[in-house]
């Protein structure tokens, strides 16, 4: 377990290093003077003359070797300071953190919604393998997996906001605003969760301890709950955290469609507007968090699953 921790921490550091080098290089890519781009993030003065730029460039050390500049930049970013957004002129941290909380709320609602439908579907399919019901569940899950959220989203808006007028078509202002984006976002994970639940549950149901429990007179529903659920939910939990890590920044299209001030939309608008400090800060936050969440999941998996713990010991 300790080896595992050390290893994963190392991996995390290397990832951070690579991502940070790439993020650092963004001002140097594309057209325009890198020094000017960097200054724009550091100095709150829109109209700098060339003389001022030259003076500040020297003062801030932007005329030094690239690797020296990188270490300076890294030192600064590690304290959470990515500079000022080009467009809103507020510090990047003040933009990222609220956006992150919005995205996390959205991701959790979507994934919980998916889980609520997927687990029963998967269990029903697993207990009646090969039946018509099983085939129906398979088809539903395959359809869900194949449904692009940027198709479902606009259709939901059309029906529930435009035609019926039940729900707001966009924005972020309370429970009613979460329903449609969460539903659109929930479909694909719902499909995957169902498939995984079905596969894990079928495997568990074939295990000898299920037969043993049944032969001791335990009713089938009770066996399912006490022995089946406990042993089949681990892979579902892994997938859940996987999607959670991804949706923290990855629900770009849905956030754009529904005009939700989350991480995905922040990243998207910053790329479109070439708002370099926000891109750098956003990418570092999101990619680091994704790796951290997955490392923690792998760790938890080892803790929760005795079989793995033994083999690793």
């Amino acid at each position, binding site marked *: 377990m300790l080896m595992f921790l050390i290893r994963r921490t190392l991996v995390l550091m290397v990832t951070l290093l690579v991502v940070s080098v790439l993020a650092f290089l963004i001002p140097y890519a594309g057209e325009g003077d890198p020094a000017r781009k960097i200054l724009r993030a550091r100095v709150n003065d829109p109209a700098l003359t060339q003389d001022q730029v030259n003076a500040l460039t020297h003062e801030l050390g932007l005329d030094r070797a690239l690797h020296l500049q990188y270490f300076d930049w890294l030192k600064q970013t590690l304290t959470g300071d990515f500079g000022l957004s080009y467009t809103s002129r507020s510090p990047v941290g003040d933009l990222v953190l609220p956006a992150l909380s919005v995205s996390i709320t959205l991701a959790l609602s979507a994934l919980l919604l998916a889980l609520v439908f997927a687990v029963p579907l998967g269990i029903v399919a697993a207990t009646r393998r090969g039946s018509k019901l099983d085939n129906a569940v398979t088809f539903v899950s395959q359809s869900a997996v194949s449904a*692009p959220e940027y*198709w*479902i989203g606009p259709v939901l808006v059309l029906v529930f906001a435009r035609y019926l007028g039940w729900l707001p078509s966009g924005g972020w202002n309370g429970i009613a605003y979460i329903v449609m984006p969460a539903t659109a976002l929930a479909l694909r994970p719902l499909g995957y969760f169902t498939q995984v639940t079905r596969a894990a549950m079928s495997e568990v*149901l074939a295990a000898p301890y299920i037969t043993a429990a049944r032969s001791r007179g335990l009713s089938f529903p009770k066996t399912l709950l006490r022995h089946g659920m406990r042993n089949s939910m681990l892979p579902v939990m892994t997938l859940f955290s996987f*999607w959670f890590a991804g949706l923290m920044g990855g629900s770009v299209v849905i956030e754009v469609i529904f005009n939700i001030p989350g991480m995905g939309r922040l990243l998207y608008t910053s790329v*479109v507007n070439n708002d370099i400090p926000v891109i750098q800060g956003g990418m570092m936050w999101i990619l680091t968090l994704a790796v951290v969440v*997955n490392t923690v999941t792998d760790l938890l998996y080892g803790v929760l699953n005795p079989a793995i713990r033994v083999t690793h010991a």
Partner: protein
Amino acid sequence: MPSLTAPPATTREPWRRVGPPPHRPNIFASMVRGIGGRHWTFKVGTVLLTVIVLVLVLTPWIAPHDPATQDLTNRLAGPSAEHWFGTDHLGRDVLSRLMWGGRFSVTIAAITLTICAVAGTILGALAARRGGWIDELVMRTVDVLVCFPDVVVALFLIALFGTGYGTLIAALTITGWTPFARLMRGLALEINAKEYIEAAEILGSPKWFILFRHVIPNALRPVAAMSFLRFGHKLITVGALSYLGLGVQPPDSDWGKMLLDAQPYMERAPWVGILAGAAIFVTALSVTMIGQGLDLSKPRGPRPQETPTAGTADNESTASTTIEQGTAP
């Protein structure tokens, strides 16, 4: 006259004489055979995909209209005999645009998928065969990349290199090879323990020969299943980027771009957007069905149907179980 016949190479390289491994599956043959008796999702998916691919291939000959010809007097017209799927906001024929756009979406998805499958398979097999630091390097890279969301990586690359097909394909490849590597590594570890590998080693086969002749061919079926399963995912991601205006660049158009263009007219002419999305959905569904069908029908020997009795407790690596370990959105 000196003899022109070279000495048979096999006398010096006996391992070249080794025939195909015992269970080596012929993917294409078994797929064609499979249409008769495999899992039902496989059959439905195959029929769907065949139709879609045929239509896309034949588009230049069968498209009813030119996809770019505008008819501003006939904007946003509903379905009619002349325009089966109606017209869009510039009076262009939706059916023809769907057919031409599909060629873009599907081609880009297919290119990225091929790169991912080849790279992932070779790296995964190499990791399993060589072990040691290569294994460690490849698998730890997979651990990291597998949790990066596709769209975010694409945004990152676009910030660095600007939009373009190169960036698009690179973005989808960087994260896309990881499930193949995981799957192939698991399969290769199983294959490593087989007698025919030992036999090949005793005969003195070089490492590359064992890898490409024995290990990879014996893992082709799950890899094929995985390819189909991932194809739908790629198609959806390509569409998402085009929908955001970061994928296909004008004047080209694909299904995602059509959906984006149709957005402002969703209320007046919902069919344009709905059909473009439906095209992505149906194509993704067809490949998903094929992939799962391949995965659910067992690889070993001729086996006409899956036994519907409870539970298969086999621990073989399959595409689905690898996807369980992680499919980033």
